[in-house]
């Protein structure tokens, strides 16, 4: 927390919602949100390193608790994919679903960390004025994931149906192959192609951003006095418990939509 300026609610919230921006070149686009990027890379290394470690030592015999836990996750993801995607799911779709779920879940889970203690650590230990530890409350992160899925969706669509088949579907689905409805089909498909990554990324971003803001509001209340601290802690705990559901649910929804989008790209109309 910045101690140089006067502490008002808007400065408190504004401070917590500022990214740690590193400028890499001239222009508004050529900068990087160092906090989002470093936290997601760090989580990726930790979480997928752990998965790799367990998978490498996986035995077909009686599994240990660690392996059993990972297998539970494995079978949960695989079951979800099995119900939605029809084809050789083990080659790409299931592992992608696992990646999405685990990665998004880990990034969402950063919301549980106490924001002001983290801010204190980053201010006093790492000398960083701004640091947002929740990568999924950064539209860049969620849009990057959604856009990657969008590219995969189009790539699989072209791969499965051929370029001609894919373009044919742009014009002839969903209303029919009559040339009179071609513009409507194209318009409909364009809207769909634009809305998919937007809704996909905005849903996750909105949920996590709202969760973060509510934590900030509760934290602000805690600054008003002893009673505020007490009830703030109580409410913060309650919101954190409820947030477990949101964190898991949003990761699940993001994964399911990924599978559904890629699955739809495999199906011809």
């Amino acid at each position, binding site marked *: 927390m910045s101690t140089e300026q006067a502490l008002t609610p808007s400065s408190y919230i504004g401070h917590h919602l500022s990214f740690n921006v590193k400028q890499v070149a001239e222009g508004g686009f050529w900068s990087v*949100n160092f906090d989002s990027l470093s936290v997601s890379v760090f989580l990726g290394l930790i979480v997928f390193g752990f998965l790799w470690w367990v998978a490498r030592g996986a035995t*077909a015999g009686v*599994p240990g608790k660690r392996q059993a836990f990972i*297998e539970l996750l494995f079978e949960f993801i695989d079951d979800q994919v099995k119900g939605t995607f029809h084809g050789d799911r083990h080659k790409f779709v299931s*592992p992608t679903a696992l*990646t999405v779920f685990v990665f998004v879940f880990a990034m969402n889970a950063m919301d549980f960390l106490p924001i002001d203690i983290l801010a204190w650590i980053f201010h006093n230990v790492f000398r960083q004025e701004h640091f947002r530890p929740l990568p999924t409350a950064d539209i860049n992160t969620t*849009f*990057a994931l959604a*856009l990657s899925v969008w590219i995969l969706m189009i790539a699989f669509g072209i791969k499965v149906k051929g370029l001609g088949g894919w373009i044919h579907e742009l014009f002839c689905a969903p209303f029919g192959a009559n040339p009179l409805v071609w513009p409507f089909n194209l318009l409909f498909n364009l809207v769909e192609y634009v809305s998919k990554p937007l809704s996909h990324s905005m849903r996750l971003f909105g949920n996590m951003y709202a969760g973060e803001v509510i934590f900030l509001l509760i934290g602000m209340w805690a600054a008003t006095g002893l009673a505020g601290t007490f009830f703030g802690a109580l409410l913060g705990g309650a919101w954190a418990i409820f947030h477990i559901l949101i964190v898991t649910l949003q990761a699940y929804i993001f994964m399911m939509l990924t599978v559904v989008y890629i699955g739809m790209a495999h199906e011809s109309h």
Partner: protein
Amino acid sequence: MNINLTLFSQALTFAILIWFTVKFVWPPLLAAVESRQKTIADGLADAERAKHDLELAAKRSADILREAKEKAGEIVNHGEKRASEIIEAAKAQAKIESDRIITGAKAEIDREVFQAREQLRSHVSAIALAGAGKILGREIDAKAHNDLLEKLVAEI
């Protein structure tokens, strides 16, 4: 909240993670899980087969038991029949033997009777001679009257 280079950096991170999971995380887990599924399926199939085998074995053992009982009954019947046969044969044998013994005894008795009669006969002549000598008051010349006596003895 502006879009900046973070978008591409995060997309790159995501792509690397997908590649890593596809390549290194998913296959070993899949192999372990599928291999265990196969083991379990095999075990269940084995158990099913063993159950079936057990049923067959129970049926066969019942069959064998029934057969053995039948055979034992047969053997007992046969034994009883054989025993009665042996008894009958022994009876017949005993009859023959007893007949033989009786015949032998009868012959022996006849011989004894004859012998006794001979003995008696020889004694009778001596007694007669002694009696006659006493009656006549003198010694009878045995030689002189032997012919007479012989004739007498033969008449007895």
